[in-house]
């Protein structure tokens, strides 16, 4: 199975029923064992296997019983996984509630109870909780009592507290929890107002528990912010955006105002435009202009091939392309400053931690990237501009270059 076929089939199976273009002739490929396995792996990597297979289970299909059983086989495992996560969510929230603690559930754990039909349609890798500052210490204590552990290295804990926006805690049985005191890393060029997330959070009953959840508008902004963190590499987040919007018309004026206030204009515009382009998601007319995202920024982001890189599930393959994407996603006023930080190697103070250097017990000396990276960024920008005519000659290239179509 080719990447393009896997991508198109995944897109078709992730569309809402009734959305334009739902259904795809490529579904017949799943009759072949090798293609089926490749598709399972691809959709798993994109984080949408449960959703895609749930769609297939509801649809009419051309397969015999044995084949459809083989196609749907991973659903059982994914369903068990989803139930374990839901039970742990309930256990943790109940423990916290008994202490009068009421964090706001974030990300996948919140999305699966607000915007999807079933938990199996939206995987989670950890339990993300936004905790009011005055409740953080008691929340940590309760999670420790519930069997969770802090990072082992004191330097790592200090690094998280000083430079990051959440503290990861790990349960020996495999559960992960992240206690957020903010929503964006300190070194990024945009901000989300975590106090406003908490203040506007709504309460819903989930499995008999009162659960606090962000309003849909905040979910959209948070998803856009997360897209910048993983360089627009996760199709799952674009599907999330489609579902959040489909679950109730957001207050677009609020979304636009908050995106502008937080310096999140370009990430929000690109996130929403990708959802519109791939899933027919309903978004406001002239959105980029209303967000203040100019033609140069739009062109630069289109040249970085957002659809093609999303199709790989890995984002831009070259490091220089990732840095360049960060620069163009930053607000115009902060771009030069961010470029300076990137070139100086100061864009991620916890890089040493992600590289597995906790054993060193302290951050290593600053890594300066210097003029070589600056030159590489400039050369790469020139290169993709020069390659634009050649890209426009291919179907994939045209798709990338037309990402902003119908935006005006």
């Amino acid at each position, binding site marked *: *199975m*080719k*990447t393009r076929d*896997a991508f198109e089939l995944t897109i078709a199976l992730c569309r809402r029923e009734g959305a334009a273009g739902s259904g795809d002739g490529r579904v017949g490929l799943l009759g072949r064992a*090798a293609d089926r*396995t*490749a598709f*399972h*792996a*691809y959709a*798993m*990597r994109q*984080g949408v296997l449960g959703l895609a297979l749930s769609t297939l289970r509801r649809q009419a299909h051309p397969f015999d019983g044995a084949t459809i059983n*083989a196609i749907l*086989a*991973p659903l059982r*495992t*994914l*369903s*068990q*996984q989803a*139930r*374990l*996560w*839901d*039970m*742990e969510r*309930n*256990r943790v929230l109940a*423990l916290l509630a008994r202490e009068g603690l009421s964090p706001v559930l974030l990300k996948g754990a919140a999305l699966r109870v607000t915007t999807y039909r079933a938990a199996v349609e939206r*995987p989670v*890798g950890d339990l993300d909780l936004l905790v009011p500052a005055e409740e953080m210490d008691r929340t940590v204590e309760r999670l420790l009592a*519930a*069997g969770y552990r802090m990072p082992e290295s004191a330097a790592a804990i200090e690094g998280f507290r000083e430079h990051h926006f959440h503290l990861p805690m790990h*349960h*020996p*049985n*495999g*559960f992960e929890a992240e206690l957020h005191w903010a929503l964006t890393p300190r070194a990024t060029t945009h901000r989300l107002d975590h106090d406003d997330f908490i203040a506007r959070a709504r309460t819903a009953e989930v*499995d008999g528990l009162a659960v606090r959840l962000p309003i849909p508008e905040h979910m959209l902004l948070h998803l856009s912010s997360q897209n910048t963190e993983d360089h627009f590499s996760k199709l799952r987040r674009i599907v999330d955006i489609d579902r959040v919007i489909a679950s109730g018309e957001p207050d677009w004026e609020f979304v636009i105002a908050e995106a502008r206030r937080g310096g999140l204009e370009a990430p929000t515009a690109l996130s929403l435009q990708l959802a519109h382009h791939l899933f027919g998601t309903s978004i406001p007319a002239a959105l980029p202009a209303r967000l203040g995202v100019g033609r140069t920024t739009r062109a630069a982001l289109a040249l970085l091939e957002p659809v093609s890189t999303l199709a790989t599930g890995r984002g831009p393959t070259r490091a220089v392309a990732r840095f360049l994407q960060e620069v163009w996603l930053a607000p115009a006023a902060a771009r030069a400053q961010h470029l300076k930080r990137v070139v100086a190697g100061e864009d991620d103070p916890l890089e040493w931690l992600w590289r597995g250097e906790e054993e060193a017990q302290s951050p290593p000396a600053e890594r300066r990237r210097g003029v070589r990276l600056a030159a590489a960024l400039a050369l790469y920008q020139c290169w993709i501009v020069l390659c634009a005519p050649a890209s426009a000659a291919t179907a994939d290239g045209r798709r990338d270059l037309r990402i902003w179509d119908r935006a005006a």
Partner: protein
Amino acid sequence: MSEVRYELRSGDVTGKVIDGEAIVMNLATGAYYSLDGAGAVLWELLEQGYSRNEAVEALYERFAAEREVIARDADGLIAELVAEDLVTESTARVAPLRMAFEELRAEYTAPALNKFTDMADLLALDPPMPGLDETSWGEAAIAD
């Protein structure tokens, strides 16, 4: 023993029944369990506070099998649940609200408690899949 009721063991055990399958996890041991058919129904009954006798009567109403067979199988499963530290005898003596079944006298198969000890693997974003383990999720067999 027959009027004994049960409760989940401490705060480490939780269970959830969806689509006729019960998943039970024990965070103290890192094991999780699956029960379906009559096993899932029995789990739900015990969790609701049914005594052993009340549960057997409810199962007899729900499934097409001899009462003695159901009683023997229920005793076996309850003994397993106790042995696995999932439930313990309860001091509660209040009769539960009666559960209403959508289907009565359904086909019966003896309940079985399936135990799994790979919880950390299952919780990964790319869990191992039975029959698909030869696949490397990170590098799928995709041709560019």
